C-alpha cells in the first residue's frame, strides 16, 4: 500500500491522474482539495515514481492502518479572491522561478493574470494611438 508524507505532499493530484486503478480519490470544493489513498494492492508504483514532491513510498499492506488522507485549503487570489490552488504548490512554483522575475504574480489566479495582460496590451495600443494623434 501507499504511504504518504503529508509534510512533503503539495496536493498536485499527479498520483491520482496517473493511477491506472483509480485508487487515489480526489474531492475538491470551492474551499479545499482533499486526497485519499485507498488501500492499494496492485503491483504498481506509477504514483510513487511520478510524484513531483517525492512524498509517496510503497509499504507492506497493513489492514489496521487507516487509509492516508490529506486536505489542503485553496489559496485565494490576491486580486479577485477566488480560491485557486493549494499553498504548497504555489510556494514550490515561486521557489522554482528565478528571483529576477520577481514572481509575486504567482499569488494571482490565472484568470486575473490573463486580464492583466489584456489590459496591459490594450494600454500600450491606446497610448501609441494618442501619441500619433498628438
Amino acid at each position: 500500500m501507499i504511504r504518504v508524507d503529508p509534510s512533503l505532499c503539495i496536493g498536485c493530484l499527479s498520483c491520482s491522474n496517473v493511477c491506472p486503478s483509480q485508487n487515489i480519490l480526489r474531492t475538491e470544493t470551492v474551499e479545499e482539495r482533499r486526497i485519499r489513498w485507498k488501500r492499494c494492492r496492485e503491483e504498481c508504483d506509477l504514483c510513487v515514481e511520478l510524484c513531483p514532491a517525492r512524498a509517496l513510498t510503497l509499504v507492506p499492506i497493513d489492514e489496521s492502518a487507516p487509509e492516508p488522507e490529506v486536505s489542503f485549503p485553496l489559496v485565494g487570489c490576491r486580486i479577485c479572491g477566488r480560491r485557486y490552488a493549494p499553498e504548497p504548490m504555489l510556494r514550490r512554483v515561486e521557489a522554482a522561478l528565478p528571483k529576477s522575475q520577481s514572481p509575486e504574480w504567482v499569488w494571482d489566479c490565472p484568470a486575473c493574470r490573463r486580464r492583466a495582460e489584456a489590459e496591459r496590451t490594450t494600454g500600450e495600443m491606446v497610448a501609441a494611438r494618442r501619441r500619433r494623434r498628438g
Partner: protein
Amino acid sequence: MAFYVDIRRCIGCRSCEVACERVHGGRGHVQVHFVGDSASVPLFCHHCEEASCATACSFGALFKEGERTAFDVEKCTGCGLCSLACPFGVVWTDKIAHKCDLCDGRPEPTCVATCPADALSTDFDLLARRARSRAARAAAQGGRR
C-alpha cells in the same frame, strides 16, 4: 517561430478560439479577452525565452525546442505546476496540460491561417512594415489622419 498579434486589427470575432479548438480536439489554447469597449485581445502562449512553465515542470514535459516551448504529452502527469507558473495564465490543466504547440506539423498555426482580420501573423517584420506605412500615410496627409 512564434506569432504576433496586431490588436489594432483584432475584431473580437473569436475565430482563432474556434479554429484552435477545432484542431486540438475541442480543447483550445486561445482566449479572446475584451477590455472595456476599447479592445479585444487574443491571448495565447508567448513561447517565452525563459519559459516559467518549463522551469516548473518536474518531468521535462515542457521544454524549449528552438523558439518554441514544446510539450510532450507522454511525460505530463497533470500536476498543474505549469499552469500556476505561467505569468500570462495561458497554460491550463485538466488531468493533463494544454498549451499552444504552434500547430506542430501544420504549415502555419491554424489561428493565424483563420484570422479574418489579419490580426495574427508569424511575421514580426509584417507588423513593422504596417507601422511604417501608417506613418508614411500620416505624413502624406499632413501629419495627421
